[in-house]
């Protein structure tokens, strides 16, 4: 993105001293400390977590509000724009690596730890006569019976939803380039709507899994990889939908120009990333 000699704004924007970062640190300290206490049965912890969460929301609104104000004020030149592009790209790369850890855990568990437990004769003879080293359906002494998730119900519909939302967000982007505000707003609204339906369906899927199928986070190697991967993905869909909603609000306020709308593009990049992760999930968690 950078030419060899660099792009230089006449004056690279360096923000004023800000109270948001320290606010965020206090929020995260309260949240982590509160969670650590809460999960160890110290009930005061959940209030600390709640306080931290409220502070975090306050910080996010304030910080991003400052960024939007600065952007509208015209503080961000071309070089700053490129910084944002690099920054968002590397952030998404870090997210890819986060999911890689859990995909790695899935592949390792499926191809190494579960089969090895099955081959190992002592597993059945000495330890756990009922251990089943099959996938899905792996079960051990600590795992209650459960039914694995089918790919061609809600998951297939969700795949179609997310793929369509990739198209609508691109259509919205064309609206930005053409400066067609109706198309921008409609495209964004459709994308957010598809994301919301996705989340509702996923919530129904989880509810069905927990109640009817007895598939829970504690359902052994299958349940843990299923819920951790799809759960973290669902959280990312939620974050992406919130980002797009903010962009929709900004469109309605008339914030963007055909040349200057990286805020939207960053959200769209993130949305596509979430989309691609889902495809990996659909193939490796649901289908195979």
């Amino acid at each position, binding site marked *: 993105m950078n030419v*060899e*000699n*660099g*792009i*230089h704004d*006449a*004056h*690279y*924007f*360096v*923000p*004023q*001293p*800000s*109270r948001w*970062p*320290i606010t965020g*640190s206090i929020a*995260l*300290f309260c949240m982590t*400390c509160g*969670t*650590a*206490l809460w*999960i*160890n049965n110290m009930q005061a912890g959940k209030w600390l977590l709640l306080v931290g969460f409220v502070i975090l929301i306050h910080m996010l609104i304030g910080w991003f509000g400052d960024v939007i104000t600065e952007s509208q004020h015209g*503080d961000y030149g071309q*070089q700053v724009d*490129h*910084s944002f592009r*690099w*920054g968002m790209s*590397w*952030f998404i*790369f*870090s997210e890819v*690596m986060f999911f890689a*850890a*859990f995909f*790695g*855990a899935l592949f*390792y*568990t499926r191809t*190494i*730890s*579960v089969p090895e*437990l099955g081959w190992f004769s002592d597993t059945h003879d000495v330890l*756990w006569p009922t251990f089943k080293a099959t996938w899905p359906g*792996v*079960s*051990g*002494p*600590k*795992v209650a019976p459960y039914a694995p998730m089918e790919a061609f119900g809600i998951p297939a519909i969700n795949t179609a939803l997310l793929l369509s939302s990739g198209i609508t967000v691109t259509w919205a982007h064309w609206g930005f380039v053409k400066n067609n505000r109706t198309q921008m707003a409609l495209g964004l609204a459709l994308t957010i709507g598809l994301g919301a339906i996705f989340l509702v369906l996923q919530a129904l899927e989880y509810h069905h899994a927990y109640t009817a199928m007895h598939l*829970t*986070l*504690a359902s*052994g*190697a299958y349940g*843990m990889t299923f819920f951790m991967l799809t759960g973290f993905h669902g959280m990312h869909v939620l974050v992406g939908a919130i980002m797009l909603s903010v962009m929709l609000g900004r469109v309605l306020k008339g914030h963007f120009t055909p040349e200057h709308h990286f805020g939207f593009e960053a959200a769209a990049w993130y949305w596509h990333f979430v989309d691609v992760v889902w495809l990996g999930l659909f193939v490796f968690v649901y289908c195979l």
Partner: protein
Amino acid sequence: MTTATETLHPHDAAHDEHASHGGGHHGATHSGWRRWVYATNHKDIGTMYLWFAFSMFLLGGTFALCIRAELFQPGLQFWQPEFFNQLTTLHGVIMVFGAIMPAFTGLMNWQLPLMIGAPDMAFARMNNWSFWLLPPAALLLIISLFMPGGGPGAGWTFYPPLSVQLGPGMDFGIFAIHLMGLSSIMGSINIVTTILNMRAPGMTLLKMPLFAWTSLVTAYLLIAVAPVLAGAVTMLLTDRHFGTHFFNAAGGGDPILFQHVFWFFGHPEVYIMALPAFGVVSQILPTFSRKPLFGYVSMVYAVCAIAILSFMVWGHHMFAVGFPATAQLFYMFMTMLIAVPTGVKVFNWIATMWQGSMTFETPMLFAIGFLCLFTIGGFSGLVLSLAPVDIALHGTYYVVAHFHYVLVAGALFSLFGAAYYWLPKWTGYMYNERMGKIHFWWSMISFNITFFPMHFLGLAGMPRRIPDYALQFTTFNEIASVGAFLFGFAQIFFLYNVIHTIRGGVGPAPAKPWDGAHTLEWEVDSPAPHHTWETPPDEALVRRGLVAQGLEH
């Protein structure tokens, strides 16, 4: 490490044009505590990083001395074994995540904008958050010690099943890792973006100071692996509290999975702590040899090669776990392959000094000390890369000796060298050279007294991570403990020297106190004004430095 006399007003360097900037966003700085807590200035944030790292170094060092006091004699003297485990764990976690990494990030914060001619870091506000996540993380670690059952005691590697079974302190350790990982990711995104997007005109990638290159590659590694560590400790957390079985065979999981995920992070992490040291030494050696860095381009490629290889060698931390022979061979050969680019670097550094007009100021002494001792650490690493040898040595003090040669004599010595090298720029005063030399020699000798005997202890079979040991290991342990306390004491010279320098040192420093230095940070005043390079440096100025560094003709 800043000075009371430092001006708080925008004050451009001599070579910087005084253009009138619209907006007036620069120069607004709070005084008092707000200056530090709300800081968006890379120099203020760098200063905070460096002081934080140094205080964590003292804290981690105190834990180390508690360990060495216990090991002075066989039998239990001071601590119960459980607390000893917490000491080794917190020593490791605090030194790695609290001292070495923040110290390098502090250096990068201070130096990168100065060296590449940028007005600040690319994301100045996020830079503040990267720093200010570290004190809460440190606080979580300290709180963990006061939880029922004490702090995390599973080693800095947090291996299950022990880490799954420990008390609430472990959860605080996990969340501390999360916060430090968040800080690392944001800090690294900032560093990568700054280097890729904010270089001075004419400074192409292959004309950057080598410190910028190693910072770039280090930050890239950190963005790649910090999220993996976050994933690993998240799985620990869910195994501990939410019923998953990632590391429990009773549900189809496997404790060894944790080791794979952890060391996928852990091995690049080793280079995250080593590469910036390479960068520092690559700045110091040419300066005091008064010669351009030998083989600049091969140095860059060596750094990149080491970074890429570092993703493919994590299994060498797990030879003792039991691997198929093919996996052992793969990891063994890949590990040995790293010796090639590392050798390129060592030979290049030696060739840089060859026939140079060398002088031996304190930074140069630390750089040469680094070179000698890091090479020893590299060789013992090569010994450990041999799977059959490693199986015998892995659980012994030989490994402790190896990684302290790499991390103390490697990373830490380079940090001391960097501090002395740039103190005149940071404070505007010269440090006390004599005391700096005493610090170096005292550290150099006591370091070897501490850690060299550990090779013998390990080869003789002394297990690591134990508070008690068999009688025959006593003598070498006593020597190591005496050395450790001497090494700890040596750091008082450093602290005194730094404070003395801030308060005026042995006199004001010129803009360029080292006649062999040609990078851009020496073109601004000493102390560096609060804001530098608000407009990019003049292309002719950049070119002059590049010619002097042998990067342009």
